[in-house]
């Protein structure tokens, strides 16, 4: 059964259709957050928040875009919300407490989660979102553009800027 049909079934009162949608997309969502956060607990929390938003919004979903595109849009919003909260938290908590270093990763090596993420988090929102979708989910630019509601060219330009900013930032270390 296609996603579209499951959405319609949910909208017609078949609550189990939501479970099927979650099971179908959970691995992708979890992987995105795991690559982003590097922390299983946090990835799980963000997944919960994402699917809660999906549950609340599904009755209003008009099937004008693919369900997966809508889900990515929500995931990106949840991730950006998390970054914003983390930024505020940093005002009150020292950086050392906020940064999470998964076991076995040395923050000195830039090609580890602990080395790469601080640089990605510094990127402007659009560039960061393109990096997340393009490299971490390996989505084509066409799909990235649809999710972000921008043109394909703009997605490419943002990615190009993101890569050059990341390179500069990582070379500083």
């Amino acid at each position, binding site marked *: 059964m296609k996603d579209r049909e499951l959405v319609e079934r949910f909208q017609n009162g078949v609550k189990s259709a939501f479970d099927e949608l979650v*099971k179908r997309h*959970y691995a992708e969502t*979890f*992987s995105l957050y795991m690559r982003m956060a590097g922390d299983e607990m946090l990835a799980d929390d963000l997944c919960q928040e994402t699917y809660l938003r999906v549950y609340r919004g599904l009755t209003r979903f008009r099937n004008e875009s693919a369900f997966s595109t809508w889900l990515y849009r929500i995931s990106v919003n949840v991730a950006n*919300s998390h970054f914003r909260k983390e930024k505020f938290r940093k005002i009150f908590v020292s950086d050392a407490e906020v940064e999470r270093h998964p076991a076995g990763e040395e923050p000195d090596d830039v090609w580890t989660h602990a080395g*790469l993420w601080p640089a990605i988090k510094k990127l402007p929102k659009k560039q960061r979102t393109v990096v997340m979708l393009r*490299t971490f989910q390996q989505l084509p630019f066409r799909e990235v553009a649809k999710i972000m509601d921008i043109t394909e060219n703009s997605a490419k330009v943002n990615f190009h800027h993101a890569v050059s900013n990341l*390179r500069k930032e990582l070379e500083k270390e």
Partner: protein
Amino acid sequence: MTSFEDKLISFSGRHIAVPDADNFVKRLHGTIHKREQKRQSLISGVMAAVILFAVSFGVYQNADRLEEIPFFISGESFLIAEIDDDELEQFDLKFDEDLVYLSAEYLLDEADVFGSDWELLKELDDADIINLEYELTTEEQS
């Protein structure tokens, strides 16, 4: 593609062990149920506050006409007239005690719902009573 991009993609391409989806769905339903309960408590709380405000406002607006209502006839209220001073004092004390006790009990019971100002705002947002993240709601439309 530059080697920098290759590195970036190969970094992101590492294998991720995904936990059991059935277990996640079960926990998710637990969270949905909990939030739904909170939402209901919150809506009841807001409704009660609105009713209380409306009644108080009505009484305030009609304060000068209260004497027309038999219950409020000054000095001759049937409730107050039958209670002597000692009884009234005892009644007041007991009433104050009960009020404090009931208020404390209410606050303790509702502490989970009205945890903090921020949580309250978040709950109002979840219940679609207010909208905290304007940007998100427009972006999340299909």
